[in-house]
């Protein structure tokens, strides 16, 4: 599917989706409420067949957080980037690890490093940090006077 086709088909599915201009791949911005539903369609609809979630990450924009999903389809070889915009004070988004199982570890990593809560995640424990860790290291305002070296 070409970029334009992807844009029109996804616009039908998720109302309120906005598109970023330029870039390597089409980037769609959506709200967290719409994401699990859209994800399920993207995976199961034979039109899209986005079966390969190759990168999940979070970004702290100071005003808000985004969780970025990089999806590709092994059948059609088209790629889509989905950005879910989250409230910084109470970041919550539904999990997609029942759709793409690779998301389980990635979401656990984002949960502890960015403080994003993934609703209905089967195993929401710390993966990397100790259980008693305070704060979310990859947020921009995280300060650790002992371990962090500023250049």
């Amino acid at each position: 599917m070409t970029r334009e086709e992807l844009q029109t088909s996804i616009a039908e599915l998720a109302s309120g989706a906005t598109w970023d201009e330029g870039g390597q791949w089409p980037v769609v911005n959506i709200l967290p409420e719409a994401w699990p539903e859209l994800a399920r369609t993207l995976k199961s609809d034979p039109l899209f067949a986005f079966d390969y979630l190759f990168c999940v990450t979070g970004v702290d924009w100071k005003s808000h957080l985004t969780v970025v999903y990089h999806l590709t389809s092994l059948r059609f070889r088209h790629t889509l980037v989905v950005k879910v915009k989250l409230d910084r004070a109470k970041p919550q988004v539904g999990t997609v690890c029942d759709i793409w199982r690779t998301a389980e570890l990635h979401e656990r990593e984002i949960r502890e490093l960015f403080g994003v809560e993934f609703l209905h995640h089967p195993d929401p424990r710390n993966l990397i940090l100790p259980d008693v860790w305070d704060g979310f290291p990859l947020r921009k305002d995280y300060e650790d006077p002992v371990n962090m070296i500023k250049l």
Partner: protein
Amino acid sequence: MIEELGTTEQGELVINIGPQHPATHGVLHLVVTLNGETIRKVEPHLGYIHRSIEKMCESLSYRQFIYTTSRMDYLSSHINNHACALCVENGIQVEIPERAQVIRVLMDELTRIASHLLWWGAMAMDVGAITPFFYAFREREMINDIMEETCGARLTMNYMVPGGVMMDIHPNFQRRVKELLLQFKHKLPEYHELVTDNVIFQSRTKGVGYLSADDAVSYGTSGPTARGSGVPCDIRKLYPYDVYSKLEFSECLAKEGDTFARYLVRMNELEQSIRIVEQLIDNIPEGDFQAKTKAVLKLPKGEFYQRVETARGEFGVYMISEGAMQPYRIKFRSPGFSNLSALDHMARGAKIGDLVAIMGSLDLVIPDIDR
């Protein structure tokens, strides 16, 4: 914190494999629930060498941050550096001289051979044969010597920089690579004789740790792990970078999806890497080894993503620039992290000995997973 681990309510035994254990090749910590010898569950616990490289990169310039990536997957440091260099080059829109591209690909493939050799020795050691490790190191040592001459380092090369490579190849480079190829082609059948054809090795690996193609995709596995299940995912073929599009090599696939299939894919990749090196070694074009770039790099506002094929699978660099001298955010998509997530699925119902074989076939490098 790891809670006090003993037995579960069902009387199953819980043992810790790692963080210091001969099978985990690093500080990976697996909490394994056992029923007798049979595995019920495998839970990875990470973070023992998490250095938060992604956070570190946010305060480093575009030239500096590349050096941290050598310390992630230290067995394919060239390829990690390559990905970052490509990503920055995308941003600054610079044309890379042909010579630099060829040198980069040569280094990538030599790294892949070295990495697979180490894996081969370690894999054999995991299933109990110690001797292959030394044979693998004999050839790997030659590659390390070649790298040392040209890059000045044997493990964390830091050779690829935005715009090309840091310095020109050593005058001995071509001669020594040819020596290596000559010896290696002669030794590869020996490897197959010693390990691949061994009855015990085959019975230890065939049918063990089955991963179906659908699961391989769902778990986001890549590289030989996914190709062992028949999923074509070689980035060099699908999204070629540098001179890969002009080269002749085939993507190694296997259908079985078991440990032996993953083993064979890697062994075949060794041959393909030799093929690539052979095509390039006599055809290094004359010219500059580095494009002219500004001393201080500034990327335009935007997002850049570069995927490359490391020895373990797809390595991705996701870089967000706000137009400053430093990246706003960098995410490294490491192949090991996703491959590890499939371990629990593959190991359930297998024996302890199988777990070790499966881990060996995934070729986990822990700093790559922890970052």
